[in-house]
């Protein structure tokens, strides 16, 4: 049974019409032992079928170990987004971007394809000044309306500066990781494994924390 009904598929088609260039989606799964992998697989398949600019490659975490190592993927289901030239944008989605997160997923696709909203000059300057390795992990639940905002902000930072990596992590799929970072309220933003922000913070709040690292 299809994941998207006709109504949603029509809306998705309209939104994806806004894609500028191609986006390469690298999807990591593992058919055995992974509950959400099957659903994520279907999700990616159906979205990619909607617009020819979306190109998908699927890998298996275990049998395609070198690919997993190349993109540093250790848990699945995982989506890696590459731009039209195959460059890693450092944007990741761990878990199915369903519920409200479909918005951050579509947002990422559009931005990676080149359809980007302008950022104010001073914000852009601050982002480009960052010269340390920054890893942002945004924990979400699919029923949280505030979460996509935080994910979109994190991913935008990754797009603007190669030193920044940003992940959406579905908290209920990756329980050990959620426990590790004491996630019990979302969105929870963890930067470099130790700095925390809670809630859909504006980009300036992210930058304030990052600049102090």
């Amino acid at each position, binding site marked *: 049974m299809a994941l*998207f009904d006709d109504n949603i598929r029509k809306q998705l088609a309209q939104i994806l019409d806004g894609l500028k260039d191609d986006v390469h989606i690298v999807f990591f799964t593992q058919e055995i032992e992974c509950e959400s992998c099957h*659903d994520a697989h279907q999700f990616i398949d159906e979205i990619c079928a909607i617009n020819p600019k979306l190109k998908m490659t699927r890998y298996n975490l275990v049998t395609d170990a070198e690919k997993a190592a190349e993109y540093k993927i250790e848990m699945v289901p995982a989506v890696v987004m590459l731009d039209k030239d195959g460059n890693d944008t450092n944007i990741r989605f761990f878990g199915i971007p369903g519920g409200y997160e479909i918005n951050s997923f579509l*947002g990422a696709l559009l931005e990676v394809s080149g359809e980007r909203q302008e950022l104010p000059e001073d914000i852009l300057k601050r982002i480009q000044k960052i010269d340390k390795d920054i890893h942002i992990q945004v924990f979400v639940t699919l029923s949280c309306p505030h979460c996509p905002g935080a994910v979109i902000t994190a991913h935008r930072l990754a797009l603007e500066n190669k030193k920044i990596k940003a992940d959406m992590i579905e908290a209920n799929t990756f329980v050990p990781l959620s426990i590790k970072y004491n996630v019990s309220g979302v969105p929870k933003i963890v930067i470099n494994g130790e700095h925390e922000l809670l809630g859909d913070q504006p980009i300036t709040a992210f930058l304030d924390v990052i600049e102090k690292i």
Partner: protein
Amino acid sequence: MDFNLSSSLFTGEQQFNAFESSKIYDVIIIGGGPAGLTAAVYSLRKGMVTGLITRQVGGQMAETAGIENYLGYRYINGVELADKFHDQVMQFGIDFENNTNVKTIKDGLIKEVILEDGRVFKTRTIIVASGKLPRKLNVPGEKELTGHGVAYCAICDAPFYKDKKVVVAGGGNSGIGAAIDLARIATHVTVVQRRDRLKADKILVDKLKHYENVEILLGHAVKEVTGAGHVEAVIAENRETGERISIPADGIFVEVGSIPNSDLAKGLLDMNETGEIIIDEFGRTNKEGIYAAGDVTDVPYKQIIIACGDAAKAALSATDYILSNPNF
């Protein structure tokens, strides 16, 4: 699998502009909840040069799971309704600023709206529709354990309390609504209410009473939240006897009302003792050219439909003021 697609997030993006410091707006609306968005539609339809600044589109409405008393929809999800409002505003050309806070406003024939990031925008009129923020309990342990068991948004965080014990502080509609959502997921829910009866609508209270895993503690106040690294217990005090009990819990949802976001107008606009901006039946404040609508005002009932009605009035008043003012 469910999908909560906000198509306005994508189609709307192309139809708004960034704010310009060199412009003098006719109306700047502070707040993007139901009041702000309604004021925007009215203002734009009147041909006013309009700008809207918001921390989050939808405001409190976006945090409500189910709305059943906004006419036209027997039941609609808060974010969905917020999207529809947003969509309606975005069909016009509006200057829009999202995820942004206003620091303060300045009066004068041409007024100023000063953002937290320092930017200043000039305008002939201002409509303050900045709504409210959830009130905190202000008890020991609350701040430290926020995000570690102390929560303010049931629809966001309820899934984390599957098979766990939770406390809900507050017996109004929000509290009982949260308790119902949690009763389906948690093993046990304790509602702690200060008064000797629940304030919520009967329809909600009746619904809650159907759940067997819910305990209602009336006449009690939450005095402390304890736990090492994560909530472990909630201390509640009997308001009559002073006796304290420790309720073992993995989380506490705070639903004890809200405070108006009126700091930006402190010292400038007349407010009542709770900080709500005082308005008349035209949505006017004590300062000419400055209007207010919605939960941030002293309107006696805080409802989406009321906020919208008041916002329409405020926008029409602002328009009348501009059109009849010889200085403009």
